[in-house]
C-alpha cells in the first residue's frame, strides 16, 4: 500500500503547489493590490486604503462599465437569437454531413480570434467589401460608417463569440428526448406550446452555458474595441489594460478588475445554482 500513497501524494501535491502558486496567490495579490496606494515612484505602496473603490464609483468609470454590460448583453442576445435556431437545426439533423457541419463550427472556435477580428476590418472599412459592394450596385453613394464605432465592436464580438454560444447549445439539444416532443404533439400542443413548455425548459442549461461563455469574454476582450472601435469605444477590458500599462495605476486597475469579477461571479452563481448536480456543468 505504500506505493499507492506515494503516487497519490506525488500527483496531488504537484497539482496543488502549481495552482496555489500560480492562481490562488496571484488572485489574492490582486485583491491586496486593490487595497493599496499608488505613487509616481512606486507601482504599489502602503498604506492600505479603500480609495480605489471610491474612485471606481465615478461617473466616467461607471458609464464605461454600464456600456460594457450593455454591449456584452446585446452581443449575448444576438448570439442566442442567431445561434439557437442554428444549433437546433444542426443538432436534430439526420444527414451524414452532420459530423462535417459540426467540424465546420469547431474550426472558427479554434482559430485565433485576433486573426478573425483582423479579417473583419477588410470587410467593414470604408473602402471595404460591404461598402464597395453597396456603392458598386448604386445603392449608396457615400460609404456607410461601419467601422471605428460601437456597431463595429458589436459585429466583431458577435462574429468572434458565436461559436461559444452554438457549441454548448448543440450538445444540449442533441440530448433532447424526441419522445417528449412527440408526446406533447400527441396531446394536442401546437408548435409554439411544445417549444415553450418542453424544448425551452429542457435546453435551458445549454442556453445559460452559452450565454456565460459569450458574456464573460465579451466584457474583457480588449483587442476587439481596440481594433474595430473608435476613440469612444472603451470597454471594461480596455479600461483595466490602460490602468496597468499606460497610466501605471495598478491599485486602481486591480480595483476595477475586482468589481468586474464580483459582478461576473454573481452571474456564475446563478449558473451554478441552475445546473446543480447535473452533467451539463462540463462546459466543453
Amino acid at each position, binding site marked *: 500500500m505504500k*506505493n*499507492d500513497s506515494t*503516487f*497519490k501524494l506525488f*500527483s*496531488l501535491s*504537484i*497539482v*496543488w503547489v*502549481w*495552482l496555489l502558486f*500560480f492562481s490562488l496567490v*496571484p488572485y489574492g*495579490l*490582486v485583491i491586496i493590490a486593490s487595497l493599496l496606494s499608488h505613487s509616481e515612484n512606486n507601482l504599489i505602496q502602503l498604506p492600505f486604503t479603500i480609495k480605489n473603490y471610491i474612485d471606481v464609483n465615478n461617473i466616467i468609470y461607471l458609464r464605461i462599465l454600464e456600456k460594457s454590460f450593455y454591449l456584452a448583453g446585446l452581443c449575448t442576445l444576438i448570439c442566442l437569437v*442567431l445561434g439557437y*435556431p*442554428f444549433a437546433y*437545426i444542426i443538432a436534430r439533423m439526420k444527414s451524414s454531413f452532420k459530423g462535417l*457541419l459540426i467540424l*465546420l463550427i469547431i*474550426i*472558427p472556435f*479554434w*482559430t485565433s*480570434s*485576433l*486573426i*478573425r477580428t*483582423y*479579417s473583419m476590418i*477588410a*470587410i467593414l472599412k470604408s473602402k*471595404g*467589401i460591404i461598402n*464597395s459592394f453597396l456603392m458598386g450596385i448604386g445603392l449608396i453613394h457615400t460609404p456607410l460608417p461601419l467601422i471605428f464605432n460601437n456597431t463595429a465592436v458589436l459585429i466583431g464580438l458577435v*462574429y468572434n463569440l*458565436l461559436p461559444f454560444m452554438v457549441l454548448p447549445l448543440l450538445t444540449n439539444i442533441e440530448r433532447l428526448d424526441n419522445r417528449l416532443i412527440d408526446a406533447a404533439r400527441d396531446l394536442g400542443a401546437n408548435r409554439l406550446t411544445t417549444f415553450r413548455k418542453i424544448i425551452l425548459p429542457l435546453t435551458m442549461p445549454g442556453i445559460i452555458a452559452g450565454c456565460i461563455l459569450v458574456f*464573460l*469574454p465579451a*466584457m*474583457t*476582450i*480588449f*483587442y476587439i474595441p*481596440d*481594433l474595430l472601435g473608435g476613440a469612444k469605444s472603451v470597454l471594461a*477590458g480596455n479600461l*483595466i*489594460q490602460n490602468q*496597468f*500599462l499606460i497610466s501605471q495605476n495598478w491599485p486602481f486597475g*486591480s480595483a476595477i*478588475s475586482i468589481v*468586474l469579477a464580483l459582478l*461576473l461571479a454573481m452571474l456564475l452563481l446563478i449558473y451554478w445554482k441552475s445546473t446543480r448536480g447535473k452533467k451539463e*456543468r*462540463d*462546459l*466543453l
Partner: protein
Amino acid sequence: MTRATSPFYVTLIYLFFYIPIIVLIAYSFNNAQYSLLWHGFSLRWYQELFTDADLWVSVWHSLLLGVLSATIATALGGLAAVSLYRYKFFGRNFLYALIFILILSPEIVMGISMLILFNLINVRLGFWTLLFAHITFCMPFVVVTVYSRMVSFDKYIFEAAKDLGATDGVIFNKIILPLLWPALLAGWLLSFTLSLDDVITSYFVAGPDFEILPLKIYSMVRLGVKPEINALCSVMFIVTLLMVMLSQFMLRKKP
C-alpha cells in the same frame, strides 16, 4: 422554422463564419498594396512574409512556448484529472471548483494577477513568465478534456487490476495511460492552439526580449492593414485547420 427555410438559414450562418476568412485568404494573393480590386494573382506577399527575419524569430518563440507549455500543461492536467477521478481527498471539491473558476474567469484578470506576482517576486518579464502563465491557463482545459474522457471508463477495470495486485503506479502506467492517450493528445493540441493564439494574458506578462507571434501580429495590425499580414493569417488558418482535424480524429477514434 419550416423545412424549406432551415437549409437557407444554416447556409447564411456558415457564410457569416467563413466569408471573412475566405476574403482574407483571397486578398493574400492579390498583387496590390492597398486596392481591393483584383490586380492579378501574386505570391509577392508570401515572398515578403518568408523573408521577414524578425517575424520568423517570433514564430520560433511562439512554437517553442507552445510545445513546452502544452507538454507541461498536459502532464499536470492529466495528473489532476486522474486524481479527481480516482481519489477522494481533502479539498477535492475545492480543486474542482478552482479549475472551473480558472476556465471561466476573465483572461484579463489572470493576466494582471500574474503581472503583479512576477513583479512582486522580481522576475524579469520574458520567456519564463510567459511559460508559467501559458501552462496555468492551458491546464484547466486539459483537466476538463481528460476528465470527461475518464467518466466514460468502466470502473471495474481498476477494481480488477487492484484485485490482481497492481499498485496505483502500475495502474496508471498500464491502464490509465493507454486508455487516455487520445484525450491527452487532444488536450495537448488544444493547449498548443490556446498558447499559440493567446493575446490577452501574454500581453501582460511578455517582455521586450522575447517577442511572440500573436503580440507581433497585434502590433502589426494596429498599424494598419498590410497584405503581408493577410498572407501570415492565411498560413496560420491552414495550420489551425490541420490541427483541428487531427484532434477531432484523435477524439473520435475509440480504443
